[in-house]
C-alpha cells in the first residue's frame, strides 16, 4: 500500500489507529498490544501517584514516550474545571500540548457533557493546547468545536466501552463532509469490521481501547484492528461500487452455450 499519511496538528502520522492503554492485564500486555496495533499515538490517563508504594512499575517504562506519542486524556472528568486542571498537569508532567479532551455527562452513558466540553475547549485553546475533542455526533456542535480551534473532532460511534459498533453512520458522515480538520470515531468500536466501517465512512482515523483490551486475545485483536483500519481506509480511497436493488451477473452473458 502506498504511503497514506495524515496530518494532525502539524504532525504527520502513518497509522490511522489510535489506541487506549487502559484495562490491560499488565503493562507488558499493553506494550505488546500497542505494538501489534501499529498505533503511533496512545491515549493515557493522569492519576495520583500511589505514594504508599512509589517503586511500582510505570507505563513510561513499557511505552517509550520518545517513540510513541502520548495523548493525555481527561477520562473521569465530569466538568470543565477538572478537565482543564487535569490537562495542565499532564502538560507539566509530559511537556506535550496535544491532548484529548473528554468531559463526561453521566456515569451510565459516559456521553459527552457538551456545555462543559465547549467551556473547557475554549480555556485550553486559549492556554496554547492542541485539543482533540471527544464529542457527540451533532454536526452543529462539531462545527462549532472546529471553529473554536480544536485540532480534531472525535464523535462517539456508540457509548464508551459498549462495543456496539457504529450506531450513527449518517451523523458521522455529515461531520466528515463539513470538517476541515481530522475526524476520528472515538468510542463504540467492538470488532474489526467496526473499525473498517469508520474508515469506509471517510474518517481520518479511529480511536479505541476496550475492543482490544477486552478481547480474549488482545494482541490478536490489536493486529486485526491494524488490518481493519488499513482495509477500511483503502476501501474508502478506492471508491466502493454503487448499491443496487437487484442482481447484476459477474460473468459475461455473451457466449453462453
Amino acid at each position, binding site marked *: 500500500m502506498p504511503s497514506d499519511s495524515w496530518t494532525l496538528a502539524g504532525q504527520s502520522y502513518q497509522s490511522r489507529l489510535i489506541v*487506549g492503554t487502559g484495562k490491560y492485564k499488565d503493562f507488558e500486555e*499493553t506494550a505488546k498490544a500497542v505494538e501489534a496495533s501499529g498505533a503511533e499515538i496512545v491515549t493515557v490517563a493522569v*492519576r495520583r501517584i500511589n*505514594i504508599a508504594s512509589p517503586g511500582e512499575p510505570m507505563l*513510561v517504562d513499557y511505552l517509550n*514516550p520518545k517513540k510513541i506519542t502520548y495523548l493525555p*486524556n481527561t477520562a473521569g472528568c465530569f466538568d470543565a474545571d477538572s478537565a482543564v486542571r487535569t490537562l495542565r498537569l499532564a502538560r*507539566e508532567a509530559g511537556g506535550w500540548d496535544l491532548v484529548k479532551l473528554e468531559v463526561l455527562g453521566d456515569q451510565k452513558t459516559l456521553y459527552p457533557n457538551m456545555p462543559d466540553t465547549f467551556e473547557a475547549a475554549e480555556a485550553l485553546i486559549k492556554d496554547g493546547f492542541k485539543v482533540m475533542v471527544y464529542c457527540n455526533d451533532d454536526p452543529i456542535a462539531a462545527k462549532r468545536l472546529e471553529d473554536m480551534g480544536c485540532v480534531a473532532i472525535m464523535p462517539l460511534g456508540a457509548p464508551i466501552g459498549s462495543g456496539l459498533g457504529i450506531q450513527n453512520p449518517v451523523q458521522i458522515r455529515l461531520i466528515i463532509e463539513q470538517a476541515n480538520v481530522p475526524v476520528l470515531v472515538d468510542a463504540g468500536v467492538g470488532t474489526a469490521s467496526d473499525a473498517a466501517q469508520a474508515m469506509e465512512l471517510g474518517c481520518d482515523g479511529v480511536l479505541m*481501547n476496550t475492543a482490544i483490551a477486552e478481547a480474549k486475545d488482545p494482541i490478536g485483536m490489536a493486529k486485526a484492528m491494524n488490518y481493519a483500519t488499513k482495509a477500511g481506509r483503502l476501501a474508502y480511497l478506492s471508491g466502493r461500487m454503487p448499491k443496487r436493488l437487484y442482481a447484476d451477473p459477474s460473468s459475461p452473458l455473451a457466449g453462453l452455450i
Partner: protein
Amino acid sequence: MSQTIKITVNGEIRAFQADMSVQGLLGALEIVGGKVAVERNRQIVPSSQHNTELLEDGDQIEIVHFIGGG
C-alpha cells in the same frame, strides 16, 4: 527535635520536617525520575521550581503521573 509540618499529599496527611522543598518531598516519597507533575494548593509547581519552592504547614499537594487509560 526539628520542627515538623503536616501536609496533605494525594489525599493523605503526612508529617515532614519544616523547610522542605518540593524536590525534597519527592525524594522523601521515593519518587525519582519518571514523568510527574506537582500541584501545590491547586497551583502547578513547574519542575524548574521544585528545588526552590518550600512547603508550608497545611499545604495540599497533588502528585500525578500517567497511567493506562482510554
